[in-house]
């Protein structure tokens, strides 16, 4: 996408009937959303006891992510601000209950009723001031406070989102922390610009055993998680260190042809990006006959 949708229009106007239909019928988007939902559910770390839970899908849209939840056997309640997207969800006959509401106005749910929450590609919309009466900070505050209230003890919330820049990520993290959440950001495939995905994993209440922020995915399982510990009193939070993951400018290679070292280095880079690369053998970059 040339520009971010958040900068074009507020979500209930951007996702009108035409866009909603386009979004839901694009196979690429369906695939990506399914993958993101599966990963979010994985990060949610619900106990694997076969008991269906009640989850919240914030910014459920046309129910693409909700379907993944149903596939795992859980009940869910979906919220979205766009009426058109919800209509498409109705057409697709999703199993969850849908609510037409604005997450920035606070979630209208009673305390402690939800076992977990996911949100795929939605939270960044909160940072925009669409109406003159909106103030993104108030909206973020209302959202996180009401979320904290309606989640049960030990429940988690996992948000996959697209922060525009470092400042936006800090803003969102800051408000989550102030509402009482603990947790951090998990980054999958941080080295690849295309595949890089960020997940905000928040836990409610005192973390139980094994509630450490999980490691992000990368080739060779590098530990790619930015572990900002959001404990209550720490107002001077650690700076998000994701800039570290931006690929450094490659050093100038030897101009005299592309030797074995160069080829090996390139293959390693490709592997880190997550591409399938043939293994390095004694034949790699072997000198071939001139007339190959």
């Amino acid at each position: 996408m040339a520009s971010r949708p958040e900068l074009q229009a507020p979500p209930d106007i951007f996702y009108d009937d035409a866009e909603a239909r386009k979004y839901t019928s694009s196979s690429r988007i369906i695939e990506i959303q399914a993958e993101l939902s599966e990963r979010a559910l994985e990060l949610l770390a619900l106990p694997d006891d076969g008991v269906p839970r009640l989850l919240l899908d914030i910014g459920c849209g046309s129910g693409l992510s909700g379907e993944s939840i149903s596939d795992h056997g859980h009940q869910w309640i979906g919220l979205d601000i766009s009426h058109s997207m919800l209509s498409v969800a109705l057409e697709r006959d999703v199993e969850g209950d849908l609510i037409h509401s604005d997450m920035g106005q606070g979630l209208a749910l009673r305390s402690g009723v939800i076992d977990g929450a996911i949100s795929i590609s939605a939270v960044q919309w909160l940072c925009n001031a669409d109406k003159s009466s909106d103030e993104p900070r108030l909206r973020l505050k209302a959202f996180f406070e009401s979320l904290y209230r309606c989640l049960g003890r030990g429940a988690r919330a996992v948000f996959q989102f697209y922060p525009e820049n470092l400042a936006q990520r800090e803003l969102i993290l800051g408000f989550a922390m102030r509402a009482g959440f603990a947790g951090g950001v998990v980054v999958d495939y941080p080295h690849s610009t295309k595949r890089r995905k960020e997940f905000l994993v928040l836990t409610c209440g005192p973390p139980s055993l094994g509630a450490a922020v999980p490691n992000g995915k990368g080739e060779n399982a590098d530990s790619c998680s930015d572990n900002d510990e959001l404990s209550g009193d720490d107002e001077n939070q650690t700076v998000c260190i994701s800039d570290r993951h931006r690929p450094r400018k490659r050093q100038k290679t030897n101009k005299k042809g592309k030797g074995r070292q160069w080829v090996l280095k390139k293959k390693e880079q490709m592997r880190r990006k997550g591409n399938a690369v043939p293994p390095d053998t004694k034949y790699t970059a072997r000198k071939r006959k001139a007339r190959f």
Partner: protein
Amino acid sequence: MLSCNIKGVTNGFPLRIEAEKVVEKQVDFNADFLKNMFPKIEWKALVAAAKSMGYTDLPDQAESSMIDSEEFLKKFHHALLQLHLEEGALICPETGRRFPVNKGIPNMLLHEDEV
């Protein structure tokens, strides 16, 4: 489980239901889920809600010992998961604000002065 979110409302739960059209969905019965949900539900509110949708079979009082009875679970399952408000409204008990329900989706959007 929805409660009224308008600023200043202290007792925004439970929302009264004004049912115009009620539909019964078919949902798979899962005893574990129901047992998990039971402590979170405010029973009186559920009974009142079910009554306003035309389902009066729920017992007025419910103790945790009752969740072992299959019959009770079936009624609970019916009221909680299968009764579906298709058209109607939810009304805040304190301010009287109506949240319309269309095609099963309640519209909880607040006006600017209510946030």
